[in-house]
Structures are given as C-alpha cells and as structure tokens.
C-alpha cells in the first residue's frame, strides 16, 4: 500500500503498546505449553506415575510409524481444506450481499449470526439429530421430495460421516467470514469505486481491481486465523461421531484428545499436539511471510 512506517530509533512506544498483550499471553500460555512440550519427550501415562520418565524421541518415532496418526493427518488435511474453502466462499458471498442496501438488512445481518452464536454442544446434537438415519429431519425431507427411498444412515457409514460433519462445521463457521469480510468491505472508500467507474471499469473489473486488492489483508488474515481454529476444533466431531465409525473421522486433535483423556497417555497425546503445531507452522509460515511482507511494503 506504499506506506512509510512512522519510525524513530530507540523508540519505546511500540514496545510499550504491545507489552500488555504479550504479558498476559505469555504468563498464562507459555508455562503450560512448555510443560506439555516436555511431556512429549516423556513416558507419561497418568495411571502409571512410577513409570514417568524422559524417553527422548521415542514418542515421535512411534507417531511417525503409527498408521492411525497417518490417517488422522490425512483427515485433518481434508477437514481443513474443505471447511475453509466452503466457509470462505459462502461467507464472502454473504458479506457481498449484506454490503448492499436493501430493506431488512439489519435483520438479515443479525440472523446470519445464528449458527455462530449457538453453543457448540447444541449445534452438534442438533445436527446429529437432523442426520439421524431413522427419524432425522434431513432423511424425512429427502424422502418427502422423493429423492430417496430408503433412509441414509449419514453418520453410521464411513463414506458419509466425514462429509456430514464438515457440512455442520461449514454451517457453524461461515458467519465468521461474513462478519469479518463485511467489516473489511465497509472500510473501502467509495471514492475508489467512483474513480474506477469514471475510468470505465465494468462491474467485474471493479470487483477484481478494487474490492479484492483492498480487502486482501483482511482476507489473508481471516483465512489464516480460521485455518488454525478449524485445525484445532474437535468438540463437534466428538459429539457427532466420537471419531467413528471406526476411525473414519479421527483428526489429529481428536486423536490427541482421546489419547489424553480416554487413554490417559499424556506423553503420546502431547507428541501428537506438538506435531500438529509444527505441521501448521510449516504450512502457514510461507503464507505468513507473505502477509508480513505485504504489511511492510
């Protein structure tokens, strides 16, 4: 954007401004996180306190040869990509529509927030109930319109379980993109559009030459933050399928959670968590560098 940062040498103001945010996160997250990372190098099964001890990279070796880790990783990848793509597309479309002037806009804006403000436990149970293969609303509707003859056990078969949960999560999260992108759209000065129009730009040209570039920082950041959030989300999966049927909806956080709180194996669970974090870091580093660079330009 061709900005020249305001900069003075030995200036303490920028540090002073970030200190509170830094202090609170480091104080509360840093110690627990450090402790958890040390678990990943330990044999640490909660009910075997006498066997607790340092074992080097054993957990990591085990994870890398664990077929369940590999399949959970694959599911995590499918999970993140499909959810982010659809949430973004739906959210962006919604933001563009809600940015127009029309009667009832305030109500529409408030109503699309519903999925996001509904507590996860309700969301998960409600969708599970709607998917139910014997009484569920979705099956009833499909049958009513003659689309199916026999009810589909959505969450009971490996072929449909993952897709069904993904739809529920798209539903839950698309308002986030809609609201954030709407706020971004509002910050684009009208003059830019007017200028483009005077230059004879068509509607789609205005969209690609004004809207997208102006919105780029917000788009990049929302996708980044949402990716991290989706990668770690597990409550909906736990309630809807618990990772099943079989292991077909195991993602890395689900696996890590089950290992820790069902298997009491905090060592291995922490290893999975650390590996997930490292993988995320690798994936987003290039992306983040891009964002940081565009901020500095």
């Amino acid at each position, binding site marked *: 954007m061709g900005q020249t940062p305001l900069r003075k040498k030995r200036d303490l103001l920028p540090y002073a401004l970030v200190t509170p945010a830094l202090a609170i996160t480091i104080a509360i997250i840093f110690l627990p996180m450090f402790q958890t990372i040390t678990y990943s190098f330990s044999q640490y099964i909660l*009910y075997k306190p006498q066997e607790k001890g340092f074992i080097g990279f054993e957990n990591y070796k085990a994870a890398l040869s664990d077929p369940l880790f590999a399949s959970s990783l694959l599911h995590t990848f499918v999970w993140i990509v499909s959810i982010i793509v659809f949430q973004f597309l739906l959210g962006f479309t919604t933001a563009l529509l809600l940015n127009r002037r029309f009667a009832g806009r305030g109500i529409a804006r408030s109503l699309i927030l519903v999925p996001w403000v509904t507590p996860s436990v309700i969301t998960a149970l409600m969708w599970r109930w709607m998917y139910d293969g014997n009484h569920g609303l979705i099956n009833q509707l499909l049958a009513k319109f003659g689309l199916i003859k026999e009810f589909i*056990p959505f969450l009971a078969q490996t072929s449909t379980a993952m897709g069904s949960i993904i739809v529920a999560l798209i539903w839950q999260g698309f308002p986030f993109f809609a609201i954030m992108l709407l706020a971004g759209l509002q910050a684009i000065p009208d003059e830019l559009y007017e200028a483009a129009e005077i230059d004879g730009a068509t509607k789609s040209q205005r969209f690609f030459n004004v809207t997208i570039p102006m919105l780029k920082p917000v788009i990049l950041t929302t996708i980044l933050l949402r990716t991290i959030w989706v990668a770690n989300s597990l409550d909906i999966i736990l309630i809807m399928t618990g990772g099943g*049927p079989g*292991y077909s909806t195991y993602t890395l956080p689900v696996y890590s959670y089950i290992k820790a709180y069902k298997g009491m194996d905090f060592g291995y669970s922490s290893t999975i968590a650390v590996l997930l974090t490292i993988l995320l870091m690798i994936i987003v580093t290039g992306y983040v560098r891009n964002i940081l660079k565009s901020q500095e330009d």
Partner: protein
Amino acid sequence: MKRVIAVALILLIVGSFAFAQGGKEKTDEVQVVKFWYHFDNPETALNPLIEKFEAENPGIKIEPERISWDTYNQKLLTSIAGGYPPDVAQVKLWWQPQLVEMGALLPLDDYIADWDGKDDIHDRIWELTRHSDGKQYYMPLQMVILYLYYRADMFEELGLAVPKTREEFLDVAKKLTRDLNGDGIVDVYGFGIRGARGGHDWWGTFVLSSGAEFFDANGNSKLTTPQAIAANQWFIDLYTKHKVSPPTTPSDGFVEVIANMKSGKTAMTIHHLGSAKELEAVLGDKISAAPVPKGAEGYWTSFGDEENAIFAATKVPDAAFKWASFLAEAENNAIWQKSSGQVSVNKSNASADADRFLKATTDSAEFAGVLPAHPGVSEFVESLWPALMQQAFAGQITSTQMMQSIEDHFAK
C-alpha cells in the same frame, strides 16, 4: 526490552505463587466435605439428603457439585493430576484400576469394619466392587443391571415366545424384522444394537457369554480362542448378515437405541431400569422386560454401577466416610434412588411388589458381571471397543482382527 519483560513476568508469577501459599486459610471448626456427583435429571437436587446429613452430623458441611457426565471423568482426572481432588466423588467400577494405580483412593476396609450398615448391602455388590488387590475402595451407591426390553405386542402378534437362548434370540429377531407395508423397505428391526460408545454391554451379553473371556482363572486371555472369535462373528453377523439391527447401528448411542424402541423402529433392545419410565410413558403395556438370553456357555449381562470413593488426599477422611456411608444406608439410599430411578444397594430396600422391570433386574443380579480390573478397561470402553466394532460392522476388519486387537490392548 524483551529481557525486562521476561524478568518482570517471572517475578509476577513467582510472587503470586508465594502470595497464594501464604494466603491459604485454615478452618478447624467446621469440616467441609467436597462431594462431586452426576445425575441425569438436572432438576434433581441433593438438598434434602444434605440437610438431613448436616442435621445429624453437626460440624460437617457438605459442598456438593453436580458435574455433567460428559466431562465428569476428565474433570476428576484433571483434579487428581493437579493435586486437588474432591473429598468424595461418585465413581464407576471401570475407573477403579486406574484410580488405585494412581494412588488416588483411600482404602476403606477399616472404616467399613466399624460401620453398622455393612451387612445391609447385597453381598454380590461387595464382591463385585472389591478391588483385585483384596481391598475395598468403593462405597456402594446404586445398582444398575442390564436386561432385555421387548415389544410384548409384537411378540403376541407373531406368536413368539421370549427367547431364552442365543439361538432362540436370533430366530425371534429375524421374525420381528419386517416390512410392514410391502414397499420393500424394512420398517421394524428385531434388535437395536448400540454400536457407538457404551455398546460393549450389548456385545458382552452375547460374546462374553459364549466362550470369550478377558482373563481366565489363571490370568490368561481367552479372547482369541476359536469359540471367542466365533462368538464375536455371531454378534457381527446380527448386523452384517442377518440385518436384524437398523443400518444406523454403528452410530447409535443410547439416545438413538431408546428412540428406536419408542417409535417402534426396533422390537427388542438391551438397557436398564433407567429407561423403564420413559418407555412406559410412550408404549404403556406394549413394552415388557426379561433377563437377557443365555449364550453358548452361560449368561452374561452388565453390572452397571455407581459407587462413592474417598480420595487419599482428603484432609477430612472421617467426615468423608460418614457422608459416603450415610448415602449407602437403607433410608437415605432409597431417597437417592428416587432421583436416579435405579435400584438400591440395600437388602432391606428390596421390595416384594416389584414391577416387570424391577423383576427383570433382580432376576439378572446373580449373573451380572463386570469388565476386568485392568487399567486398560477405561480406554477399551471409551474408544477402542467402539472403533473396532464399527470397523467390523463396516467389514474393514475381521472378527479375528478385532479380538486380536482387544487382546493386544489388555496385554499391555
């Protein structure tokens, strides 16, 4: 600058720790017993029992906390691992091996020896809840036994008798699986299997009664014997071959299993007294109950239980035991069961005019069994069994592979 911040933070944290240590208050006069429990009905409150207890035991105050079932175990473990467990908490038998292994529990034998109420508890309950090291850590609280629910009207309509054996059961289940309106789609299924978490009780009824055993008398696994694998195959076949259980079976939890009974989607299932009231509310006389059928080698049904444990870290063991034993005394236990809808642990509470559901429960008491006292049971119940069962139902693994995985898990 960063270093300054880091130093300041460390000082802040250390300082607050020191402050908190110094700030801990001591109360000697009133003994407070922290009690954790879970109840399915959110409207039920323990207040009457607590008031009664506190009136009888001045100087002891009960601080109850009702915790949701879904996070109960996690919260308990967190508090133990963090070093701050409650004094008394409602617990499950299958957690006992882990809790004992962690040194979290207080052995109660000396207390129980001096307790007047001990002879009024069913002997079978003492037997089942004693830990494998010979010590008693758990105080009985309630008894839950699984039995067979069936649609009496459908049995009558088809002229069927309540199945007594595994073979009769399969035969009946097949006959009950029907397409009622001739559209080629099955409308009623013979048997509702819980294929999601918690369904090991359904599985155990047919597999653990037909030759499979976690550990025999010598401590050897008998899960991969030909009989055990065949028994497991028999159970898998109910869903994959005979199709007497709905297609949704792999994802069905207790909500779905009971809903299917209510709507008439299934004609039989296994559950306990806790569902009797709601089933009767919808189905009236059409629902009835009997003990589970006999397997190839004998009977097995699940003894689902609730007990209270006292934690080793407690500062008030005497008061804690008073409260745990108070709840196991006939009069108070009867009040508790009014809320829980389950069966009292006291001999003197056994009622003569039992209805058909209570009768099915007590008739099953002598062969009701529990899973082995092994720290791996919890993981087996919570995640291993459902995953393996669902894979077997989907045809991804064989009966042999499933039983082998379970054996391997318990060999660890």
